[in-house]
């Protein structure tokens, strides 16, 4: 080393190197952690052909058994209708008449195939120009039910069967205490990040408002709003979306249940 580099320069060099190495190590660890964790609720998608073409003149695989099970079944159609409303599919497919998205009153002519498993695949995978992939949000059974409802809309003979939806049960948690939930929300400072109706000083704008959270279809953008998912999220948000801004508060299960009970009063 030349005498032009004093002891201060080599100390600076050491500190900067340590910082760089630590930073890179932390980044790599965080990336591999994120990549190694499989997303929730995703199962292998079905191999569903969307066209009658098949390589080498081969035959398409037989349709999955769910097609026979769900198609034309009034219970599933009514359940699918309720879920269709819950996720506001009408927002783009106005009650089947279309809008931003195509209509389902189409005599069976679907862009990506009108067989039940093809409709299922379109909902599961999403399609170009704005159809979201619902694979991670809506459980597979419910997607089949939606598909059954959509297919019923497309068949004139079945449109009357697609009439009234089964009522979706409103989320509720048994055994939770609303007052204690409100007290815990106040005590744990949830209002410092979230606007929460009915909680004093809960006007935070770090995270999203919890107004109407009882009726919200999706929690944290990644899970359907069910009591189990709500308690899972409150207990351990970092496990579900690693690195997101909501911290783990180390709450006991009973406390989480009471908090969720309070939140489900916010219609």
């Amino acid at each position, binding site marked *: 080393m030349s005498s032009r580099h004093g002891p201060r320069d080599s100390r600076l060099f050491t500190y900067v190197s340590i910082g760089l190495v630590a930073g890179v190590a932390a980044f790599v660890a965080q990336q591999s952690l994120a990549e190694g964790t499989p997303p929730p609720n995703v199962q292998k998608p079905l191999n569903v052909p969307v066209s009658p073409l098949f390589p080498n003149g081969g035959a398409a695989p037989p349709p999955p058994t769910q097609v026979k099970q769900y198609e034309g079944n009034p219970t599933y159609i009514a359940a699918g209708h309720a879920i269709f409303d819950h996720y506001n599919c009408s927002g783009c497919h106005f009650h089947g008449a279309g809008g931003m998205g195509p209509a389902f009153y189409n005599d069976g002519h679907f862009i990506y195939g009108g067989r039940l498993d093809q409709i299922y695949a379109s909902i599961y995978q999403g399609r170009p120009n704005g159809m979201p992939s619902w694979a991670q949000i809506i459980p597979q059974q419910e997607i089949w039910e939606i598909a059954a409802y959509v297919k019923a809309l497309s068949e004139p003979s079945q449109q009357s069967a697609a009439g009234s939806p089964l009522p979706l049960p409103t989320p509720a948690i048994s055994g939770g205490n609303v007052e204690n939930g409100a007290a815990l929300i106040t005590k744990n400072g949830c209002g410092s990040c979230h606007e929460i109706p009915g909680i004093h000083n809960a006007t935070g*704008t770090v*995270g999203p408002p919890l107004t109407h959270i009882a009726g919200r279809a999706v929690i944290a*953008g990644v899970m359907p709003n069910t009591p189990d998912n709500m308690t899972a999220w409150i207990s351990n948000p970092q496990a579900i979306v690693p690195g997101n801004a909501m911290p783990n508060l180390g709450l006991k299960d009973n406390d989480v249940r009471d908090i969720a009970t309070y939140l489900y009063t916010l219609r």
Partner: protein
Amino acid sequence: MQRLTFFAPFLALVLVVPLSACDRGQATIAANGDAHHGAKIIRQLGCGNCHTIPGVADARGNVGPPLTRIADRAFIAGVLPNTPENMRAWIRAPQTIVPGNAMPDMGIDEADARDIAAYLYTLH
């Protein structure tokens, strides 16, 4: 060495001044863009089907979170600091940022994303 000592205060000033941009006030500065046009695009694209958005007709969705006070919010989607650049990135490609989340990629171009963001930054 003497020259460095002379210039050190100016150097320090040059390095420190940009740090003043790192406060949350940056989020309340409207992104360049036409907020009026942004509101129109928001209505056309149907964002209100999933989000409650003040000032946009029929935007009463409750699939995703409300966008009330989105201009003041510290985070976008729970994972991005709320800056105009991050807002445009999220609007254009949410699936790249949180793969599998419920908000679809809508094929929005940069100019429209800027206008949408400009409207959102009026929501205090």
